[in-house]
């Protein structure tokens, strides 16, 4: 983060609930509270890591940031414009500025389209380039993600997982966006390929001044790529802090447990390290526990944790935490 960092995206009380319908009349009987009140901002040029276990709502939050889901409540300011309340046409004009990279490079590329067509599709939709200009642009995009520009006429199945992810990245870059949501971009890749893709993402960021929301369950990779890290649990962010602070000095008991659960590739360290093993499973987001959501699994929960919802408060140097007892 630089000193003149300004906020590019801000989420305020972001909520996404998915209705549950039941019975013959398909009446709504409840809601899965996938994302239930997030507050954070992302500064221009920064990478915000969003970590959490499966089902905690991190992907839903990422998609909601681009309004790929309609919000149940709250607002998302993109350079001060609330995109949650924008009309269809105005939203469409904003779209080129924010893009997404998906987890599964197999599923997010249309197998019947050539690589050239896939990367050119956003250009068809949002620009008035001639087909010659488009072809040139596609070639330069392929080059910028480290692929041979002669591959334009090939189909996705002809590429390996890592190469497909590069194609997905090239497509996201086509409209020269400011903000990219990376939804587990390396989860489906082999260890030796992950590093290639992460390096590529960082190179592009430096070159184009991009802002990332980097969603991942891989805490060590997030530590590497992010500037600040937000930890999600059951639809809420429980802690957000600059990465060194978060990894060296975690405040929330869930963050502590999560970090201690990550195995370290060093047998000496592993032997002596203290592991906090959480009991039980993540509760259902359709029926979250009252009070603090982590109270049912928290090793240090007190009586009032089961009753009072902890507030989202400032802590330490630039950090936030939602816990009654963190200090």
């Amino acid at each position, binding site marked *: 983060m630089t000193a003149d960092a300004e906020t590019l995206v801000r989420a305020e009380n972001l909520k996404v609930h998915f209705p549950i319908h039941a019975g013959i009349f398909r009446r709504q009987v409840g809601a899965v509270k996938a994302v239930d009140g997030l507050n954070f901002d992302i500064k221009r040029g920064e990478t915000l890591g969003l970590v959490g276990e499966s089902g905690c709502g991190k992907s839903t939050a990422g998609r909601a940031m681009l309004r790929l889901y309609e919000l149940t409540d709250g607002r998302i300011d993109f350079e001060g414009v609330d995109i949650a309340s924008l009309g269809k046409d105005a939203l469409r004009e904003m779209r080129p500025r924010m893009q997404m990279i998906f987890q599964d490079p197999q599923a997010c590329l249309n197998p019947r389209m050539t690589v050239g067509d896939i990367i050119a599709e956003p250009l068809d939709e949002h620009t008035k380039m001639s087909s010659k200009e488009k072809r040139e642009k596609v070639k330069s995009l392929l080059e910028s993600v480290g692929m041979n520009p002669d591959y334009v006429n090939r189909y996705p199945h002809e590429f*390996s997982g890592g190469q497909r992810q590069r194609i997905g990245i090239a497509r996201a870059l086509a409209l020269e966006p400011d903000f990219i949501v990376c939804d587990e971009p390396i989860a489906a890749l082999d260890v*030796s390929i992950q590093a290639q893709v992460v390096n590529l993402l960082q190179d592009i960021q430096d070159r184009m001044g991009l802002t990332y929301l980097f969603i991942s369950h891989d805490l060590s990779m997030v530590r590497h790529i992010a500037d600040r890290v937000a930890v999600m649990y059951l639809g809420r962010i429980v802690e957000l802090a600059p990465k060194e602070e978060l990894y*060296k000095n975690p405040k929330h008991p869930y963050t502590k447990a999560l970090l201690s*659960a990550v195995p*370290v590739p*060093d047998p000496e360290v592993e032997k002596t390290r203290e592991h906090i093993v959480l009991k039980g499973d993540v509760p259902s987001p359709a029926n979250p526990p009252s009070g603090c959501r982590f109270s049912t699994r928290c090793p240090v929960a007190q009586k009032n944790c089961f009753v009072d919802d902890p507030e989202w408060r400032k802590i330490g140097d630039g950090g936030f935490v939602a816990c009654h007892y963190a200090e």
Partner: protein
Amino acid sequence: MKKIKYSWGGRAIKPVLDVTDLKTVFHTQDGVVHAVNGISFHLEEGELLSVVGESGSGKSVTMMSLLKLLPIPPAEIASGTVMFEGKDLLQMELEELRAIRGGKIGFIFQDPMTSLNPVFNVGFQIMEPLIEHMGMDKKQARARAVELLELVGIPGASDRLDDFPHQFSGGMRQRVMIAIALACDPKILIADEPTTALDVTIQAQIIELIKELRKKLGMAIVWITHDLGVAAGISDRLLVMYGGSVVEHAVVGDLYKRPLHPYTRALLNTLPAEGSGETRLRSIKGSPPNIGAEPTSCPFAPRCDHAFERCHNENPPLKRLDGVHDVACWWDVEKEAPRHDS
């Protein structure tokens, strides 16, 4: 490939499982795939051997080959012996082999959702091997099934026997899988990426459980994983596989402190180091090989920074260095020179 004589600092050891020169090929429409190319290893009583490698390195196929769990054809176990209790598993009749599968050798698979049968309750699935292999009647099997579920830490075990797999969470399902694998007191447990599909906090629970069970039951475990972090915490020894071959074998402390194969080194280097402050990750160029033919050169050579002429012409055999450290490489990474001793 010449077989390595086993000894730990001069002490001869008795392996429970002894695999020699195992080769498995797949006959596909696009030609023959050589998934496993002459692998030899052994497993000692009560130890935990991790097999580490990327997808496609042949680690799962190797373990499936041991008990002929592969569809034959297209798979073919081209050569090799797998000695278990004085007999070669690969030469056994199917009936005989069936008595060992799930009996003396237990298996845990990666995805507990697809390896449990959704239309039977878990009680039935745990009792099945007990009735089949141990000759128990239903009542005994049920009592033992409750014990097993308690052993793997499922609360309210006796009530949960009649539940179906979909009523369990991912971590709980994996515990059920472990209970099934342990049902008949196996001598060997083969775990194929048992924590890969799980979240880190649940993975930590399962690893704790395996550690406890080892202490209590003392079976030998083969743990297949791609995660060097997981392997560091639980293994006694490790095999590193690449392109269908074992490229390095060492006891756990040795392997992490002094990796000798360029692939192992590169793999350890790609992991983001804690607080190293390095801005770039060190990546391995290129991608894993397609193994369309028996290797005539080192499978890692095209991606290796140290590759020289010999690497492209000859496949290095797994060679015993000092102590219990084997490596298949023509290059001595410590002296930064080709190995002369071979």
